[in-house]
């Protein structure tokens, strides 16, 4: 059997409430789960009917890829499945076409079952009540009883939401939202989920790495809140096809969805500049498929940036980045987010800071990069509405055309990446890190990146100079922000330079295991250049614009590094 982990726990279905008509589509998921899986399998199988060579190839490829993977996995669970795949490899050549189709149906069915999530409104209700409580309890245990009565102000203070929220609420009623946030932490989905809940936006389905399901409690919540499982270890083409078909079908059926188009967490700390979209591209296909069968429900892509003054896994991410290991360690399962103590310390630190996380939604786009108005109409450059259906028509007929949709998807990826730059909220820690890192580069013109990253506790900066440069850089950021190039975060908007520096030092001390920067008499001593690089990397696109005449050369070096390594 194609199955690696036992199924996550679910509550008995017959005790569940009946969804109300105005509930988001996800409240009806449990009754649609079976039909959705069947439809996914039918569509995948359809793709190979009448194409015997393609069929044989896809089965061979899947079987051999799985044999390779499971053989290297080498555990009890794997050995069971390994035998099945090995037998299939042997039998495939002798099978009739009908038998192969049967086999494809079985494998695709198992894969779809493994992927498909669940949504239990009771678990959702529970989560909306307990998650803020748990987080508040971690952050300020003593205040919990008071907060339960008066709302979770502690958490509300911590997470700021910005953007066209009222418009998104409206659009969620007339079409399907596809949220596309930047990705820097495993807390992203939690922070975003909380922001959606608080802002009365509908819950979303999203693909989560299977490794996140290994903890039974987290697995229970994720599974029952609409997350579907993505096993990144499986390389088989067929698996990717089943996954894409599942994701496409969910959007076709009106399930609001969430994708991290950067794929994996940004190791360098930079905002993603090149997006491949991957699964998010199924939003374009879903729109076309609906149009081709006469369903005109619009799809809205909503870029969002998640901005943290402090990043839970900063140390692991930047180390991984500097080792150039980002690709080989696509799945990091031993970082800070898997250590309860580190997560606790992180939240304990955050409670000392206000607005340490900013979730900023950008203006929604249709699948063809057009802005949409409050009613969900696509708007052309002339300011007039344009019919989104026209983009999937050829000779006046709506069609499904993967090559065409790949073109649209590429353009959408570029458009979203541009929005990311504009909607990035610069946090105070990032700006101070940038000025300190610029100092480090300025003082070590003879060193390359790796030489520089070894300089722990050797370069300092007079505090007065740091404050002056932070103040000047903030003023320039204000100008860039006024021109729509970037957003200015809390603390930076209102505080004086001295206060900004204080707040950054405060944020850095006490959570990270390495000292980023510390006071040393009248100077600020640079401690760990790696973490400094991580936090300053968000400012790379603006490095030259923020420079003073004296620091212009250093700024150019930083800009040319493009995030380092």
């Amino acid at each position, binding site marked *: 059997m194609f199955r690696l982990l036992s199924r996550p726990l679910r509550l008995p279905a017959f005790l569940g409430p009946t969804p109300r008509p105005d509930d988001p589509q996800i409240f009806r998921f449990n009754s649609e789960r079976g039909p959705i899986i069947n439809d996914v399998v039918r569509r995948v199988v359809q793709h190979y009917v009448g194409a015997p060579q393609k069929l044989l190839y896809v089965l061979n490829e899947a079987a051999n890829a799985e044999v390779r993977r499971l053989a290297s996995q080498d555990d009890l669970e794997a050995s069971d499945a390994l035998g099945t795949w090995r037998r299939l490899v042997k039998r495939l050549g002798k099978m009739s076409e009908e038998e192969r189709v049967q086999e494809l149906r079985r494998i695709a069915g198992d894969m779809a079952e493994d992927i498909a999530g669940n949504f239990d409104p009771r678990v959702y209700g529970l989560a909306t009540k307990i998650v803020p409580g748990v987080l508040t309890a971690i952050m300020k245990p003593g205040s919990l009883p008071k907060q339960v009565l008066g709302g979770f102000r502690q958490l509300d203070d911590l997470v700021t939401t910005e953007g066209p929220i009222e418009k998104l609420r409206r659009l969620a009623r007339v079409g399907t939202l596809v949220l596309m946030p930047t990705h820097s932490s495993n807390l992203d989905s939690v922070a975003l989920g909380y922001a959606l809940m608080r802002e009365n936006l509908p819950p979303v389905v999203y693909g989560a790495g299977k490794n996140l399901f290994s903890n039974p409690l987290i697995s229970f919540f994720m599974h029952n809140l609409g997350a579907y499982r993505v096993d990144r270890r499986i390389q088989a083409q067929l698996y990717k096809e089943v996954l894409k078909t599942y994701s496409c079908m969910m959007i076709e059926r009106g399930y609001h969805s969430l994708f991290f188009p950067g794929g994996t967490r940004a190791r360098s700390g930079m905002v993603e500049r090149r997006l491949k979209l991957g699964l998010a591209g199924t939003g374009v296909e879903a729109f076309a498929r609906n149009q081709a069968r006469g369903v005109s429900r619009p799809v809205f892509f909503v870029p969002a940036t998640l901005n943290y003054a402090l990043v839970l896994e900063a140390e692991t991410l930047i180390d991984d980045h500097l080792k150039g290991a980002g690709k080989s360690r696509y799945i990091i399962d031993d970082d800070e987010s898997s250590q309860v103590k580190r997560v606790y310390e992180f939240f304990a630190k955050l409670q000392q800071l206000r607005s340490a996380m900013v979730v900023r939604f950008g203006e929604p786009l249709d699948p063809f990069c057009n802005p949409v108005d409050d009613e969900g109409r696509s708007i052309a450059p002339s300011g007039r509405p344009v019919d989104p*259906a026209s983009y999937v028509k050829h000779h006046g007929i709506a069609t499904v055309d993967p090559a*065409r949709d790949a073109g649209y998807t590429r353009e959408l990826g570029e458009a979203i990446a541009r929005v990311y730059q504009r909607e990035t909220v610069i946090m105070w820690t990032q700006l101070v890190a940038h000025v300190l890192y610029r100092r480090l580069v300025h003082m070590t013109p003879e060193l390359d990146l790796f030489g520089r990253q070894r300089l722990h506790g050797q370069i300092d900066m007079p505090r007065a100079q740091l404050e002056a440069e932070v103040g000047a850089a903030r003023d320039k950021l204000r100008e860039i922000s006024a021109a729509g190039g970037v957003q200015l975060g809390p603390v930076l908007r209102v505080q004086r330079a001295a206060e900004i520096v204080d707040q950054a030092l405060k944020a850095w001390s006490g959570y990270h295991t390495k000292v980023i920067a510390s006071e040393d008499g009248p100077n600020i001593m640079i401690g760990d250049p790696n973490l400094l690089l991580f936090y300053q990397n968000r400012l790379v696109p603006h490095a030259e614009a923020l420079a003073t005449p004296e620091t212009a050369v250093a700024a150019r070096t930083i800009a040319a590094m493009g995030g380092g390594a």
Partner: protein
Amino acid sequence: MNVNSRATSKIAVVGGGAFGWGLALAAERAGHEVLMWSRRPQREGSQRVRLVGELAELAAAELVFFAVPSPHMPALAAELGQHLDGGHFLVHVSRGIVGEELQTLSQVLRTRTPCRRVGALAGPLVAKALVEGAPGGGIVASRFPEVQAAVRDALSCSSLRIYRTDDLIGAEFASTGVGLLAMAVGFARGVGLGPATLAVMASRGMSECARIGVALGGRTETFTGLAGYGDLLAAVADDGRPELAVGRELAAGTPLGQLGRQLGAYVEGLESARRIAAYARRTGAHAPLISLCADVFEGKVDSGQALAGLMSRQVGEE
């Protein structure tokens, strides 16, 4: 508009210059009905080429060619864009770029109109060959296979070979580079430089274009293909394109006022060279030859200084 009313065989052309007419006649020869809009029509329509008075009338075609100089493109695209929707395919033949960030004209089409299925026609296609149906070839660049197919269908005839690529930015930038290098080739010929110098100039110039083009998102192989080297070879072999003539006139010291109908090609080449040179200065990209071209076209340096500049550069690894 009602897209169903769009006849499949209608092709639209914006611009009634030599190239616009070349496209119109080639499409007519391929059996299509052509709608052409021109600010100042220079000749009568034909049986199947109908001159229209309003840009809006072009919306009846699915495929629209833009054959106007790049400075006119943004305004015309915005005006026509009011009558178009996502079902239209737009393809331009310009050798220009706009703005400080070296925006290609397909980007202009995308931002000024609701159309996304856009492309560019590049390579060694010259108006005369299109008009006469002489053997030749070109390349259509678009991220959308439908657009590539529509262009090939619109111009298809046994003597014309239209290749395709999805590297739109690369093809547009290569085509721009060839435009200004062709002007430089004309100039070099005019001052009596020999084949070896021309070869060095053309090769180094194309390498500079490729470096910047790749930084902008294009692919190297596009610059070594029909849109880049292929096109430049035709210019070096003197295919009679206007850029060569402009280069020769500049070498002869003809005042700009006397360039007449070639002024458009001059402006395009000069602007491209200036913009690329400024971009290279700003970003630190290595483009000495293109910067020299900008100075020569602008009249800042004469031919003697240009040659000295070209030859005094330090020789490094290719």
